[in-house]
């Protein structure tokens, strides 16, 4: 169809949408009157209303046809299969009577028993019906209509509908297929008909990859020919239920949230004749669990968006049944697995009925459960654990009603940190309580987490570290949070203490658990039972950096594992290598991104790791949207490879970490990462990317050109009374803004001439704003015979303690 025609159709469809609803109301009102529901009517009134009702129906038919046509035209090639022979048989039945009424001889001869084409069955029937309708309508009494189904030389299926009627107009027959075209000679006979029938036929033919044409029939009337490519008939279209072939394989998937549907869909793509069943306890499938904090804050307004495909299809049970051909049993609990019998005992949660569901292969995607510490008051009303749509709904409802203003989040891990922003955005006062000495333990080192704490506090969030919640108090509903030190008010509490793998079902079935307590799997995602796989938040992972078992539940991992498991279920060979604990999260204006081991995690594992701290702009500093990021690298001096990386700041952090992930997976030493040919233009990075700079600083340290020392170490040395010189080499201007206690200030520009002011028998620790100038200073000092010179990592910018003369820290 010409682009112009398509656009016209689209505009008409928009208008039809607008007309549809009021027109429907008009018809309902007319029928309310006609039905006598609003009082009795005279016969004359009834007669007029009946004709109004008839006209309304005509208009609604046009609207429906137009919408159907527009939908068909806009939807592109169809991949659904329908049997044209079956459609003709049904159409024949429908038109037998109207034809008999006009004494028309209607013959249908089918050369093919079945003829499958790409079309929706209902749509194909409509198109065939439109052709027969036309033929019967435009053939005078006593005439003939012949329908023939055969094949062409090219192997296409050909449908011919010929009649002995008024025939086609002399002009261009192509016009017949234009929307709303009705030939002059047709107008003379009938005034009804939407004028869309033949356009619809053409759209159906085109969507099926074929075409239509029209001409004069042997009987002197019109003949319409439709030629469509044949496609194989699917088994279930042909066979009745009783002789349906045995499925090639029975796969049961327990869990319908993230990894489970992925397994099911991939299995169906690889093994179209498999019988796949998803068993899910909840009522909803496949929601984006990680999106829940954004749903609560209103950034994602509609709950349905979380369970929709990007094309807007709701991933409800029907979506999986119809589109993916996966059998879905929601509100159904898997009670027990019997590995010997290869069967799962399932229970319908509504009726309580139980039955055994046999499987050849079983996939466990049962997810994780929130850890709810057993402390007094934890079951009070308005104490939530963010897990699942129902909790999110509860929290959201609470916020919407203005019921909660003072909210305490227990746990400074990912869930807690991500929730905080949502709640502040919703206008709440938030207190974040963490038992350990920093936010995001296990994810960041202390000094990086401290940047985050300061950012939180600048946004009005109260952060209580080293604080243990011992209980909650309230009369039915939570009113107070009790910690070891104090009691403070709260009208809602969110527990973000963490999650644990849901392993009960697996454990009962004798499936082996790993050292982390999650289900042990090999790289094929296979459990200790060869026919049972486990994926997602219930499964254990391998840390690719250390090779040790780890438990890092993430939606991204679940999706990858789901695919791997499906391939292996279908007899293929795919492996999942492991994870690097890569994490990214958005916290107000900051991004936190990290991978691999932190400095403290490396130390716990016996590495004598070398670290760097390099603050810098995320793109050329002169670009208006340049923003700071602080990069911390952790490297193994023996291999010169990265062990981990952390990035915090308002700038673009994720892409630097992504490059590090790829480099680490490839086993590159920092020397090679430092020269990787990464994207460069001033809008995206500096000539040397932040990762390049960090790697170069790391190389300087590894090669002994630069000795670094962390700010925390400097402070400890000072607290312990060690004798050293803290040398500030920044400019006078910078020095005026903020300075460190006891620091000697000699700007880099005059350092050479003032060397005499520095002692040669004491360690010198130099720093500048980000310690780039300090590195220069250390080289000058070393060349002049100063033996013990170190550079404070990250400069004053990374000094996490109080400073003198500081006005406002941003």
């Amino acid at each position: 169809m010409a682009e112009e025609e398509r656009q016209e159709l689209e505009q008409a469809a928009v208008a039809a949408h607008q007309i549809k609803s009021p027109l429907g109301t008009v018809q309902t009102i007319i029928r309310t009157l006609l039905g006598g529901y609003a009082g009795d009517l005279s016969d004359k009134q009834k007669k007029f209303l009946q004709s109004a009702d008839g006209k309304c129906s005509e208009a609604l038919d046009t609207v429906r046809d137009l919408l159907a046509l527009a939908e068909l035209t806009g939807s592109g090639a169809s991949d659904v299969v329908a049997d044209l022979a079956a459609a003709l048989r049904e159409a024949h039945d429908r038109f037998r009577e109207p034809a008999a009424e006009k004494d028309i001889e209607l013959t249908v001869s089918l050369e093919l028993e079945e003829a499958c084409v790409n079309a929706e069955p209902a749509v194909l029937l409509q198109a065939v019906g439109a052709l027969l309708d036309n033929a019967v309508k435009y053939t005078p009494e006593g005439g003939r209509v012949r329908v023939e189904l055969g094949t062409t030389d090219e192997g296409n299926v050909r449908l011919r509908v010929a009649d002995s009627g008024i025939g086609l107009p002399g002009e261009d027959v192509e016009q017949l297929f234009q929307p709303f075209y009705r030939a002059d000679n047709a107008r003379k006979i009938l005034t009804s008909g939407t004028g869309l029938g033949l356009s619809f036929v053409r759209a159906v033919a085109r969507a099926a990859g074929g075409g239509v044409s029209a001409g004069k029939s042997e009987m002197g009337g019109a003949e319409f020919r439709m030629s469509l490519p044949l496609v194989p008939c699917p088994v279930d279209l042909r066979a009745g239920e009783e002789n349906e072939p045995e499925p090639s394989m029975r796969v049961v998937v327990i869990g319908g949230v993230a990894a489970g549907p992925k397994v099911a869909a991939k299995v169906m793509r690889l093994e179209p004749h498999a019988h796949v069943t998803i068993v899910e306890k909840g009522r909803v499938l496949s929601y984006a669990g990680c999106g829940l904090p954004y749903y609560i804050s209103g950034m994602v307004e509609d709950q349905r968006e979380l369970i929709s495909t990007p094309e807007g299809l709701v991933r409800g049970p029907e979506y999986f049944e119809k589109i993916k051909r996966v059998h879905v049993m929601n509100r159904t609990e898997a009670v027990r697995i019997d590995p010997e019998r290869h069967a799962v005992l399932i229970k319908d949660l509504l009726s309580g009925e139980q039955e055994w569901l046999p499987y050849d292969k079983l996939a466990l995607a049962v997810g994780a459960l929130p850890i709810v510490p057993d402390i007094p008051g934890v079951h009070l009303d308005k104490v939530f654990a963010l897990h699942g749509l129902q909790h999110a709904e509860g929290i959201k409802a609470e916020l919407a009603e203005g019921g909660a203003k003072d909210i305490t989040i227990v746990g400074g891990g990912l869930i807690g940190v991500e929730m905080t922003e949502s709640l502040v955005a919703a206008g709440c006062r938030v207190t974040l309580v963490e038992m350990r000495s920093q936010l995001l333990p296990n994810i960041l080192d202390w000094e990086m987490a401290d940047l985050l704490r300061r950012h939180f506090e600048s946004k009005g969030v109260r952060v209580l570290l080293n604080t243990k919640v011992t209980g909650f108090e309230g009369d039915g509903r939570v009113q107070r949070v009790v910690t070891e030190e104090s009691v403070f008010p709260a009208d809602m509490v969110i527990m973000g203490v963490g999650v644990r793998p849901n392993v009960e079902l697996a454990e009962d079935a004798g499936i082996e658990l790993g050292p982390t307590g999650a289900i042990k799997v090999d790289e094929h995602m296979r459990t200790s039972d060869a026919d049972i796989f486990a994926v997602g938040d219930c499964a254990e992972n391998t840390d690719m950096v250390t090779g040790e078992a780890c438990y890092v539940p993430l939606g991204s991992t679940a999706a990858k594992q789901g695919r791997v498991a499906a391939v292996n279920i279908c007899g293929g060979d795919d492996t999942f290598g492991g994870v690097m604990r890569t994490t990214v999260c958005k916290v107000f204006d900051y991004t936190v991104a990290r991978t691999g081991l932190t400095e403290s995690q490396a130390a716990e594992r016996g590495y004598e790791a070398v670290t760097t701290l390099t603050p810098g702009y995320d793109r050329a500093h002169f670009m208006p949207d340049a923003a700071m990021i602080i990069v911390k690298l952790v490297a193994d001096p023996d291999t010169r490879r990265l062990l981990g990386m952390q990035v915090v700041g308002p700038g673009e952090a994720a892409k630097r970490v992504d490059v590090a992930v790829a480099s680490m997976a490839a086993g590159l030493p920092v020397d090679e990462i430092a020269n990787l040919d990464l994207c460069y233009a001033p809008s995206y990075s500096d000539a040397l990317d932040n990762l390049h700079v960090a790697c170069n600083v790391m190389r300087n340290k590894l090669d002994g050109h630069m000795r670094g020392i962390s700010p925390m170490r400097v402070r400890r040395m000072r607290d312990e009374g060690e004798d050293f010189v803290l040398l500030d080499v920044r400019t006078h201007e910078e020095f005026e803004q903020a300075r460190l206690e006891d620091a000697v200030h000699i700007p880099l520009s005059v350092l050479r001439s003032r060397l005499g002011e520095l002692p040669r028998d004491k360690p010198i620790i130099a720093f500048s704003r980000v310690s780039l100038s300090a590195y220069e200073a250390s080289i000058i000092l070393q060349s002049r015979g100063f033996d013990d010179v170190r550079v404070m990592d990250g400069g004053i910018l990374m000094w996490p303690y109080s400073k003198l003369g500081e006005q406002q820290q941003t």
Partner: protein
Amino acid sequence: MDELILVVDDDVALVEAMTATLESVGYRVATATNVEDAVEAARREPPDLAILDVMLATGGEGFHLAYDMRRDNRLAHIPIIMLSGIHRRTHFRFSPDSDGEFLPVERFLEKPVDPAVLLDEVAAVLAEHRDGGADG
């Protein structure tokens, strides 16, 4: 027959027509044209059945209303007939048979609804609910 039916649709003319139909056979009718009024009306006197338009003013509001009712202990038992427009672009249609738990309603009726059909469905749903109401 004095069951109370709550009719919710943002099309006032349609609400009036449905009200006339329902009242003509003896039902009592409460009406609302937005979600807030609907919730208030339902809480004031819980109806025996609710008829909701799926779209209302902004897409899907009726859907949310149905969810809200199912979560509210006082309203959770009320059967719902949902009215939906005649066509959706995606070919994706809800049906209470396969989607009962996901979309918790008793019936889906396509607009325009014939008054006789509406009365039949209302009577059928009320009857089913009376029979099945003992355990719920």
